[in-house]
Structures are given as structure tokens and as C-alpha cells.
């Protein structure tokens, strides 16, 4: 739907709200990368910056919510426009949650730099975060390009993130069993792994919104569920 509205102000409002989503998405990508980097490099300053920057992400969500409410009230959007406004609301919510997980990783960093590292787990977590960051980048690209195929690809890639989480979960269990003094670190590291796994789920939800926006249909099969740790004894 590249045609323009007869009411050009409507087009400008839709563009503005999408610009805010992209800005928010950029900040969230940064937060994921920075929180994982701070973890691996034991960089407290960078972690503090991630925590401070989360406020800007939250503020953007509020702006987007207000713009969406206004659009619904004043323009009564239908069809593709309605799906756009609905998806914007959900995507903003997903981005805000991802931002919170990044902030939480940064908080745990404060404790983790006071205890010895657990093998190379920080590097593994950073790789996992990198994967989620790339998924988010592609999800946002698919959103702006209205590319349902790329979005479907992102949904599929969440499986890999889940598998990385499963592997780390087992690794931390083993460490804790062998070395009780590593329990504090491992507990925090495990929560970080879980945070990243949840980020992947939110990215998947964004990609699902893209499929809905473009096709008008919800994705047939919902996201792959490869996180099996709930059943691990």
C-alpha cells in the first residue's frame, strides 16, 4: 500500500509513529550489545550507562502509546492502517521489555564483577546476545520493508537461541553441582541467560506482528518452542 492518504496529515502521523519505533528499536539494539559487552569485559561504567539509557527507551514507549491513542481516536484507522497502529502498540511493548532485560543484565553485572568469572560463560552469553541483537535488527528491517518472509526467518531463528539457553542451563547446573562456591555467579549468569532467551521471544513476537501487518493473518504456527529447561531435572 504505497499510495498516499487523501488526508496528508494522516500519512505524516503514521510516518512519525513508525519513526519513533525505529528510534526505539535502535536504542534497544544498542542496549543488548552494550549489556553483553559490559558483562564480558567486566565494565561497570558501561553497565551503568545501559541502566541510565533505559529511561529514554521507556519514554519513547509512552510517546508511541500516546500517538497511537490519538490516531485511533482521530483517524479511526481501518485495514492496513489499523493493523499498523495495532502492531506499533505491541512492538513498542516488546521493545520496552527487551530494554528492561538488558537493564537487568547490567544490574547483575555489578555483583558479577566482584566474583571470579565462571569459565568462558560470559563470552557464550555475549554470543547468545549477539544472535538476539541480529534477530532484532532483521525484525525491524522486515517491519520497515514490510517483508513477511524475512520476519518468518526471524521467527525460525529463535529456535537457535532457545538451544543456546538449554546448553547454558545444563552447564550452570553442572558448575554448581561441582563447585558450590560458584553458585552466586551461576545463579546470576543463569538469570542473564534466561533474560536473553526472553529477549528472543519478544523479538519473535515483533516478527509475528510484521507477518500480521503485511498479510492480515497471524502466523500459522506460533514461535518455535525449543526451551526445554522447564522439564529438566
Amino acid at each position: 500500500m504505497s499510495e498516499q492518504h487523501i488526508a496528508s496529515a494522516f500519512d505524516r502521523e503514521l510516518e512519525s509513529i513508525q519513526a519513533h519505533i525505529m528510534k526505539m528499536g535502535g536504542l534497544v539494539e544498542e542496549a543488548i550489545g552494550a549489556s553483553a559487552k559490559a558483562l564480558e569485559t567486566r565494565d561497570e561504567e558501561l553497565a551503568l550507562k545501559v541502566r541510565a539509557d533505559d529511561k529514554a527507551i521507556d519514554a519513547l514507549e509512552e510517546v508511541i502509546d500516546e500517538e497511537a491513542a490519538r490516531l485511533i481516536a482521530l483517524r479511526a484507522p481501518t485495514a492496513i492502517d489499523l493493523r499498523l497502529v495495532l502492531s506499533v502498540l505491541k512492538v513498542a511493548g516488546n521493545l520496552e521489555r527487551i530494554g528492561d532485560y538488558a537493564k537487568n543484565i547490567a544490574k547483575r553485572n555489578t555483583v558479577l564483577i566482584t566474583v571470579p568469572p565462571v569459565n568462558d560463560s560470559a563470552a557464550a552469553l555475549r554470543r547468545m546476545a549477539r544472535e538476539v541483537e541480529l534477530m532484532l535488527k532483521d525484525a525491524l528491517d522486515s517491519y520497515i520493508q514490510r517483508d513477511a518472509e524475512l520476519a518468518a526467518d526471524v521467527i525460525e531463528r529463535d529456535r537457535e537461541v532457545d538451544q543456546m539457553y538449554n546448553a547454558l542451563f545444563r552447564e550452570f547446573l553442572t558448575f554448581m553441582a561441582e563447585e558450590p562456591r560458584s553458585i552466586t555467579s551461576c545463579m546470576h549468569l543463569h538469570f542473564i541467560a534466561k533474560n536473553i532467551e526472553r529477549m528472543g521471544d519478544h523479538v519473535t513476537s515483533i516478527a509475528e506482528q510484521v507477518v500480521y501487518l503485511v498479510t492480515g493473518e497471524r502466523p500459522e504456527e506460533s514461535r518455535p518452542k525449543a526451551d526445554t529447561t522447564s522439564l529438566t531435572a
Partner: protein
Amino acid sequence: MNDMARVERRVGTKNAKITARDVQVHYGDTHAIKDVNVEIGDKTVTAFIGPSGCGKSTFLRCLNRMNDTIDACRVRGDILLDGEDIYDKRVDPVQLRAKVGMVFQKPNPFPKSIYDNVAYGPRIHGLARNKPELDEIVEKSLRRAAIWNEVKDRLDAPGTGLSGGQQQRLCIARAVATEPEVLLMDEPCSALDPIATAQVEELIDELRQRYSVVIVTHSMQQAARVSQKTAFFHLGNLVEFGETGQIFTNPQDPRTESYITGRIG
């Protein structure tokens, strides 16, 4: 969304009240309606939407042979009401219009009393045997049109003295007085303020319990609010016909999408 779709599907499975097959309408050399095929459900509100001149009013007027009165107008194809061809030679258009009532854009009460406006149809069709029966029909019709309480003390006053919204509800009372099976409404709210519009829309929803209602409207929001099925007309073609919820969230034809989202199509 799923619940909404389910409700609409249930409505959709009702039997067709009106079936149109390959309907063509010409005004002189103008081809106004091109090959329209549609089934209008019983006890359903069907909205016809589309830009001015798209043929929606013309098609509506075919459904009770209002176009017969226009000399240059030729209607081809079949329009069946309960399976009977309404253009059959044996069908009396006056009897047909008692079954298929119509309400117009501009309220057009007769220059008679409120009572006589409503009693007119039942009188000419001989629906009442005596005065008490006629009184009953008038009251029932005015109640059904949600205007009884406003006019019950002045039934002898002229219908033309009522406000616009009241006049339109009086016309609806007049239309339902003959117990029609189908009610056609051509822009029934375009001359009304938002309160009167809301009252008429509420009324349309109540009428749906008994009748099949077809409404032509330029207000997409009105179509979305009152109808279960929506038909989009463009340049004489029926472009898309479907559940109202689907048409307004996920139309299948790009022309429908352009029109309902307010884009230049």
C-alpha cells in the same frame, strides 16, 4: 477477533433472502451496474459502500423495482426474493414494495398527520379490518421505530412538523407498518445529527431481529457499526463482499483497501 468472526459466520449461514444473479443495469448508454452477483442474508444488516456514482444506490433500487419508474433504465439478470423472480410479469410492484420497504436519504413524511403517515400503507393494503386494529398497527410501528414516546400525545399533528431525526424515524415507522420482510435504506442518516444517527442505528440493529436490512451509506464508520456484511461497489462492479469485520481489518481487494483507508484509488 476470532469471537467476532464466529458470530459473523453464524449470521452468514442464514438463508439468502435476496439472490442477485448477473444483474446489469443501463441508464441509456451508461452501463451503471456490471454483472453483480450477491446473496443478501435474512435477518442480517448488509451495508453497500463505495464512492459516489459507483452504482450502490442504483443496485439498491433494483431490489424493490424503484428503477421501473425511470424510463431510460433497463435492468437485466435475475433478482430473487425467497427464490421468486421479482421482475416476473406476474409480480405487482406495489405488492413487492409492501414486502420490500424503503427509507430514503431525506426524511419524506407525507403532508399528513403523524397517524396517517403510518396508517397509509396498512390502509391501501387492507391490513386492518377496523379502527382499533389500525390504531394497534400505528402504535406498534411507532414503538418499533423508537419514536412512540415522543409523538403519542400528538398523533394528529403534521408529520412535517417533527425534527429531522424524528421525521426519519417516522418514515421508518411508515416503512415497517406494512410488515415488510426487507428494509432498504438509502443514506438514512446523512441528514441527521449524531444523536439522531445513533438512535436510527440502534433501531437498525433491532430491526435486524425481524427483517433483512440493506443500507447504503457514505459513512464507513456507520457501515462498520451497523452491518454484519459489507459490499464494496466501484465503477458499477461489486468489487468485494464479505463479513464486515474482515472488510475493515483485512480487505482482500486493493481497491477496497484504498477506499476504506481513505487513499486515492
